[in-house]
């Protein structure tokens, strides 16, 4: 029966083929656009998560180097020195520490925080896939006690 359908070309009028082709083009264009957009969204989301995991690793390294066992720093001045001397961050004009796409800030705009509690902001930038060339960033914040 299917063979008979294929052999029978009576139904393939020009108008029918044109309408069919137009419909196919419309659907495929929409599909390709939707696919491209959501694929870019996914890559963006992955890049963002990667940046956040990098910020997390950075925070954990700072926390792990505090105190007695792997002693690197115990107060804010030692932490600043450790970041510059050991981890090769450079201090920028805003007083934050920068290396590659990571910026660490040890000052907080918030008030009423004890002096012995060091605010730590780690910001990691990544390229936005949806807006090529534009840099976006993720930020993690915690506070650590001086030892």
């Amino acid at each position, binding site marked *: 029966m299917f063979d008979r359908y294929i052999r*029978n070309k*009576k139904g393939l009028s020009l108008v029918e083929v044109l309408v069919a082709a137009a419909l196919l083009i419309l659907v495929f264009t929409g599909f390709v656009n939707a696919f491209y957009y959501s694929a870019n969204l996914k890559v963006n*989301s*992955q890049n963002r998560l990667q940046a*956040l995991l990098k910020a997390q690793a950075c*925070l954990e390294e700072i926390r792990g180097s505090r105190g007695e066992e792997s002693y690197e720093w115990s107060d804010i001045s030692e932490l600043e020195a450790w970041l510059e001397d050991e981890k090769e961050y450079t201090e920028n004009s805003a007083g934050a520490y920068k290396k590659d796409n990571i910026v660490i800030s040890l000052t907080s*705009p918030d008030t009423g925080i004890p002096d012995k509690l060091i605010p730590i902001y780690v910001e990691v930038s990544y390229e936005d896939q949806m807006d090529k060339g534009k840099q976006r960033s993720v930020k993690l*914040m915690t506070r650590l006690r001086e030892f």
Partner: protein
Amino acid sequence: MTLKLMNNKKGSAFLYVTMVVFIVLLMGGMIVSLLTSEIRVNKITEKRIEAKYLAEAGVEHAMLGSGTAGSAIIKDKDGNTLYEYTYSVSGESINITSYGYLDNKIKMKIDCSVKNDSITVWNETPLQ
């Protein structure tokens, strides 16, 4: 009547196209749905990580507390809640409960016990 309809081949190309379009849309929908669900999972993971570090800031803050018990809600300069903690001292242990907030909603709870500056109990509970 049915036989007459089956023998009439007019519109058959349109029928095929409709079938192809349906299949393409179905496959496309599935792929897009998979992609967006991954994005949603990544978003949840991000929120949990951010809230976890805010809750940990609460634990660190509580460990600086004095007296046998205390609590505080810490906000940023714009008035958004960052974290909230309560602590109580029993013997040599400090029992701390800390909540990490995002968009003024509790997203992570940490229950822990600290003895001589070492953590003896640590439980993290993500909250919706």
